């Protein structure tokens, strides 16, 4: 692996993003605006906001990064640039690491802004803001990894966008955001046990809800990290040098 080529790739991805001011604005502002909306939907009491707010801090970056990555990657595949990249010295690992780095940075910026809005003006009552921040970045990278992976199955950008409801929404329904996982029927709980977002949500709930950190939070973080590594490795396998 060459750090020079990895960094050049990350820089290139960020340069592309920098020419798209509207996307940057959407990327940075939309999660905060959604949280504001969410808070005032439950204007009567702050309880649902305090319970779900931290979880949403982790879920927004996941969704956004999944979308951005899968669409960008499909563009890379259909425009012929991926084909060209694979004839250069750039290795697949360097390409993926470059993407992870660039989008990880974008996700961090998003998470910091969203968390600042939530904990500041919106007065979200949560413990361990830093731990929630770590989960938000892990979630973003998980979204990036799954986006890279799913982009292999999309031929057009239109299809890539359709993968968002197909891949993200089931995880959203089953991760414990709407209904605690322990209250679900057994088959649903088993399904949620193999979906990575469940662990991210568990981890955030456990960190935000208790003044002291429990060990399961670390285990949850490890599962999310392992899942994102797996997604990235599988995604690397889909970058075929030779195509029909």
């Amino acid at each position, binding site marked *: 692996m060459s750090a*020079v*080529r990895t960094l*050049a*790739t990350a*820089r*290139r991805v960020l*340069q*592309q993003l920098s*020419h*798209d001011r509207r996307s940057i604005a959407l990327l940075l502002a939309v999660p905060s605006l959604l949280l504001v909306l969410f808070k005032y939907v439950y204007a009567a009491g702050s309880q649902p906001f305090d319970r779900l707010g931290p979880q949403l801090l982790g879920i927004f970056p996941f969704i956004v990064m999944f979308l951005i990555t899968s669409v960008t990657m499909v563009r890379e595949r259909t*425009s*012929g*640039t991926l*084909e*060209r*990249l*694979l*004839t*250069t*010295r*750039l290795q697949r690992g360097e390409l993926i690491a470059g993407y992870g780095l660039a989008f990880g940075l974008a996700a961090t910026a998003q998470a910091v802004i969203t968390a600042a809005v939530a904990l500041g003006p919106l007065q979200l009552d949560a413990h361990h803001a830093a731990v929630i921040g770590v989960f938000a970045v892990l979630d973003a990278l998980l979204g990036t990894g799954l986006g890279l992976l799913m982009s292999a199955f999309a031929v057009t950008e239109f299809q890539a966008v359709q993968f968002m409801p197909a891949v993200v929404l089931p995880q959203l329904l089953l991760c414990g955001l709407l209904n605690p996982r322990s209250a679900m029927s057994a088959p649903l709980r088993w399904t949620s046990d193999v979906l990575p977002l469940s662990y991210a949500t568990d981890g955030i709930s456990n960190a935000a809800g208790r003044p002291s950190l429990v060990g399961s939070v670390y285990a949850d973080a490890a599962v999310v990290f392992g899942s994102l590594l797996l997604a990235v490795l599988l995604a690397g396998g889909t970058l075929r*040098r*030779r*195509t*029909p």
Partner: protein
Amino acid sequence: MVRGGRLALDRLSLDVRAGSVTGLIGPSGCGKTTLIRAVAGIQLIRSGRVTVLGEPAGSARLRGRFGYSTQSMAVYPDLTVEQNLRYFATLAGADQQSVEDALRDVELADRRSQLTGNLSGGQRARVSLAAALLGAPELLLLDEPTVGLDPVLRRQLWQLFQRLADGGVTLLVSSHVMDEAARCQRVLLLRDGRLVADETPDGLREHTGQDDLEQAFLTLAERSGQAS
């Protein structure tokens, strides 16, 4: 060789001489792109062998030794011309000077700060060509690099190809324009995935008794049609 579920190249055997410009000429859909992709090592091949610079095509040792410019102008539309070239230069291990040289070679120095997506088709094709030139490759695979260019610029690019060949670079350049064949040392005529001719432009004229290369191609096409 099969592409898109269709036999794209059938019983093809050819050599491309080092340090020369070889033209790959034929109508669109005849297999030019498939052949170039096979040499670039990104085409799945059903059977056959492709050797490039002494290595099997697609070998990791070849990466960075050749430049490849696709027909789809594989550059990033949402980067400026210079940002595109700097990125590909880093991947090729080339320096800023080679970016400047490539910009000058394709006459885009005055467009360097423009977004590539805002350029005309011909200008974008030149950005793609410039990206292939970076890092002094030994072999250049150029798929229809002169499409949509005005005749003056086209002539300049062919002069550039010749200069590169004189300096020892091997070029395989595809085109569907017959008169570009005259600018190559060797011409490979492809039709329906078959090689109809592998000659010098003069040899082509001699064998067919036609002065005009377009006519020569027609004669050869008719002959091969009768043979099959």
